[in-house]
């Protein structure tokens, strides 16, 4: 996170090589996700791994494609922690409640 680059008016936008590398890594992570679909994993584990990989992919997109890495640190602090907090509040009701319902079903 550069706290100075954007503040002084110079705008680092990255190079074609950097963007192509990010694109390649995004494709590679997608390929891993598709490969995982072939393994018969339990849905809760599968969901956790897939969301984990997707979070890495979104971090790459936000940092490089959306330039947040090159922006003022204050912008990052304004936007991301509040969003993460809100999403965590949504997730609170997900685990373990969604799995508990499975145990309540008559077998």
């Amino acid at each position, binding site marked *: 996170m550069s706290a100075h680059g954007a503040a002084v008016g110079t705008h680092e936008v990255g190079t074609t090589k950097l963007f192509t590398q990010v694109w390649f890594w995004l494709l590679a992570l997608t390929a891993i996700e598709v490969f995982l679909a072939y393994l018969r994993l339990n*849905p*809760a584990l599968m969901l956790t791994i897939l969301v984990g990989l*997707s979070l890495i992919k979104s971090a790459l997109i936000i940092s490089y494609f959306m330039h947040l890495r090159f922006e003022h640190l204050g912008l990052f602090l304004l936007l991301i922690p509040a969003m993460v907090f809100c999403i965590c509040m949504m997730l609170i009701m997900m685990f373990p409640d969604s799995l508990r319902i499975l145990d309540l079903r008559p077998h």
Partner: protein
Amino acid sequence: MSHLEPEGLLSTPWSGGASPFAINSKKLGMWLFIISDSLTFSALLVAYAYVRLSNPDWPRPFEIWPAIAKSSLMTFILLSSSLTMVLGVASAHRGDRKKTLRYLGLTMLFGLAFVVIHATEWYTLMVVDHVTPWSNPWGVPLFGGTFFGLTGLHMLHVTIGVGYLAVVAWGFGNGRFKPEDVEVSGLYWHFVDLVWMFIFPLVYLMSVNLKG
């Protein structure tokens, strides 16, 4: 203004007359919109993940060929469109108008391809498999509701994005819009790409039919 102020007292970026985040207001506005929109999608995705995990009988209609192959191709198309978009923004900042328009055109083309392939996917589900947002032959009506809700909202974003890019390309081409406007439209486009990075694994890869 700062030379009129006592040294160190009011010279912070927050004392007015400066841009604290060193970005223009359009970009800040787009970022704030993206954060609120991401919470809309998060709510839908969390709701989907909840019902997906609590239903052991969740349908698995997506066979490797053609559904997963098609959705993987759509992911590739959307990721490539993000690459052309970011290169377009870089060209706009360099002042290369011709190249910017070419990259924006490619991005729109990728976006259109995504919508067309997605529409064929919907057609198969609705006409061949008889899935509607309210019912399906597999006895889990929530499948259609969550599938069409999530992918429909995303497809709406892609469609609006293609129109938005067309307006920006037209305005940038005739000198009405600045490179900053191209960059702000790029933020929107990357966000649409980012959302698909969650929808593709959660909706498609969690319901793969390996027997097919």
